[in-house]
């Protein structure tokens, strides 16, 4: 067997939100459970238990559709504070195995185990130990993929879900990838898949065997990249923590909206929320991204890179609003969202001489108070008057009753 030069693990919790709910309420065990927005408010599924998946329900599916598929579906609003605290447990466990952990979401992360293996043991044993640590700390199951190439680890973790452990040894990468459908490759979305299938390429093996020149001719640099992936070549490294993160907020409306004032008001609110989270984590971002989904489900994302990183709500809002003005053709909008990526530590951290500290701190305290209220009562307890007025026709917001004291 070829020696391990690099070793990557991808850890992904099984049906994370739903599993946490079932763990904490045993009466849900064995029932189809989803976490997500209510069907009346056009919510979508954020997570589905394996029982619910048997009905063809998957995350991002409109809740109304999920209910159609399974009328006795248990719909839970989700408790993100709880998921976050489980996530912190997970990240703590990952940290025991590697200093280089790249979280992809609350329940999913890449670990670079290249330096760890020598001290902690062989690869398959490492995978078993990570799963065991997670189980004993959280009473939840995870699926783990281990491979000498980062993206292969991700494919591997998905193959034997739930509670899976798939190890791809060096030298076996090509054979492992060969029979898989091309849709499994990172970077192959529905459109690329269609285009590849149109030239008779359905498996990663076929893609690997394809003429590189032809791929480049058809897909440009992306074709070269896909060909490398199919051959199991990928130099991507684990990007620890904050470097990989992005901060975003998006909202699906109860009814499609086409009035600019309302949409801009929502953007303003979202920009403030993103800014607050950036500041809480003492980071800034260089790229602002706007996401729009129209009534026909067509979705566009448009981004703009700033000359210097920011966490400032007004800069994020202005950039997002300009993108909106440029790319919105007055059609009805189903979803709007704003995000910031290209995350770096806050501008060398030193405070600014020329900002009014008192006003800044008043804003900060207000923002934190709003966050606490939101966390207690569900989303969007306090909104700018502009947004509230615009929303008056929408009926009440979906809300949970306050938890505890």
């Amino acid at each position, binding site marked *: 067997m070829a020696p391990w030069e690099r070793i990557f693990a991808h850890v992904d919790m099984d049906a994370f939100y739903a599993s946490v709910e079932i763990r904490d309420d045993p009466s849900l065990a064995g029932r189809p459970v989803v976490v997500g927005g209510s069907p009346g408010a056009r919510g979508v599924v954020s997570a589905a238990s394996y029982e619910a998946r048997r009905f063809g329900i998957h995350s991002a599916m409109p809740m109304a559709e999920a209910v159609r598929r399974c009328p006795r579906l248990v719909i839970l609003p989700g408790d993100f504070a709880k998921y976050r605290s489980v996530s912190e447990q997970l990240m703590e466990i990952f940290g025991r195995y590697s200093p280089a952990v790249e979280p992809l979401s609350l329940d999913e992360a890449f670990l670079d185990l290249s330096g760890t293996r020598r001290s902690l043991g062989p690869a398959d044993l490492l995978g078993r130990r990570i799963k065991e640590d997670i189980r004993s700390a959280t009473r939840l199951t995870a699926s783990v993929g281990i491979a000498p190439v980062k993206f292969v680890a991700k494919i591997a973790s998905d193959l034997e879900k739930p509670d899976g452990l798939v190890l791809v040894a060096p030298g076996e990468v090509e054979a492992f990838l060969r029979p898989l459908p091309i849709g499994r490759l990172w970077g192959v979305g529905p459109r690329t898949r269609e285009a590849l299938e149109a030239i008779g390429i359905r498996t990663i093996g076929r893609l690997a065997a394809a003429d590189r020149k032809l791929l480049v001719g058809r897909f440009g640099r992306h074709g070269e990249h896909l060909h490398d992936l199919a051959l199991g070549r990928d130099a991507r490294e684990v990007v620890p923590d904050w470097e990989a993160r992005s901060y975003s907020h998006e909202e699906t409306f109860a009814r499609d909206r086409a009035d600019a004032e309302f949409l801009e008001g929502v953007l303003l609110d979202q920009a403030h929320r993103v800014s607050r989270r950036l500041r809480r984590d*003492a980071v800034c971002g260089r790229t602002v991204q706007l996401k729009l989904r129209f009534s026909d489900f067509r979705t566009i994302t448009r981004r703009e890179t700033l000359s210097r990183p920011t966490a400032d709500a007004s800069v994020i809002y202005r950039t997002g609003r300009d993108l909106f003005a440029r790319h919105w053709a007055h059609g009805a909008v189903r979803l709007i969202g704003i995000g910031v990526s290209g995350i770096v530590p806050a501008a060398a*951290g*030193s*405070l600014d001489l*020329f900002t009014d500290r008192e006003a800044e701190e008043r804003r900060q305290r207000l923002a934190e108070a709003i966050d606490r209220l939101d966390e207690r009562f569900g989303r969007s307890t306090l909104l700018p008057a502009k947004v509230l007025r615009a929303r008056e026709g929408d009926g009440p917001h979906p809300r949970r009753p306050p938890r505890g004291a």
Partner: protein
Amino acid sequence: MKFSTSQSGFQKALHLVASVVPGKSTLPILETVLVEVSPAGEVTLTATDLDISVRVQRAGEVEEGGRVAVAARRLHDVVRELRDAEISLTGEESGLTLRCASGRYRFVGAPVDDFPGLPEIPDQKPLQVDPAKMERMVRQTLYAVSTDETRPELTGLFLSISDDQMSMVATNGHRLARASLSGAFKQKREMLLPPKALNQLLRLIGDADGPLEISGSKNYARIRIGSTQLYSRLLEGPFPDYEKVIPKSNPLRAVVRREDLLASLRRILVLSDSQTRQVKIMLEPGRLQIMAQYQGAGEAQEELPVDYDGTPLTIGYNGGYLLEMLKTFDGERVEMAFQSAVSAGLFKPAELQPDEDLLCLVMPLRLPGDDAAG
């Protein structure tokens, strides 16, 4: 044109102007030096990159006046290597010929009339400053300018002159340095100078052969040092209202030995985060601790004696800012004054010349785990 001059004098003059010549320009004429010779016996060399121009005048033995523009670097590279004491030059628009005992060198000329003219500066009331004092002020402030091109007004050094004071201020928004000089200046003037011009000025001051005079127009400044003149385009302001951010009363005062603090920071910074360069400073009566840690690298801690009797204070700084600042201080001790962990700290040398002042502000870093209000 025909003149002769000493190799060393000509070489020095060429060296001064050649440093302005851009390495590669879209305008070929900018790669040349303009050599002008007056029948009265003055040899003048000029080079410009359109933002900055340097003009140096030297005496020569002139037989015939004239003007010629030739490649600055080539001319300099040859003159620098000559071992002859005297050289003679002849020229017309088509080129310049240099003759000396060892040989003959001909440089092709560029169209003299293409050479950009220097800005017109009204000659009234130039400001006179001791070059040594000017040099110190620039050195004590220039490091603090911003390099962020999105805030161009902070990339410049702000020179402000009033009846009895001249000050230079630089800031990058997180730290600020102000050096002042008292004197009977008897005029009011403000200008925002680009760092490139000031670096050039430091070079020229090193070679100063006389007093320093500053004058200016709306868009340009001219600094004359003896027979050398530096012209610079000014940056557009406005420079921020820095005076209002200088704390009026920072009650927590401490004094440390400058060399100790500087050496300590140099060591501590080795183990600070290479991005934030964060150091933590803890003050308590009689004791100053400096700490840093860098995940994956290690941590460091030192203790210094301090003259302090205020309440204990913990404050985070970009240690790189403190280091750069302290390097420009003279004297044995440093005075520091604080108000809180989230407001500007004030730093100055404890010993200053009676007519000089230096004041630096550095904003703290928020330490992890700080309360929002500090």
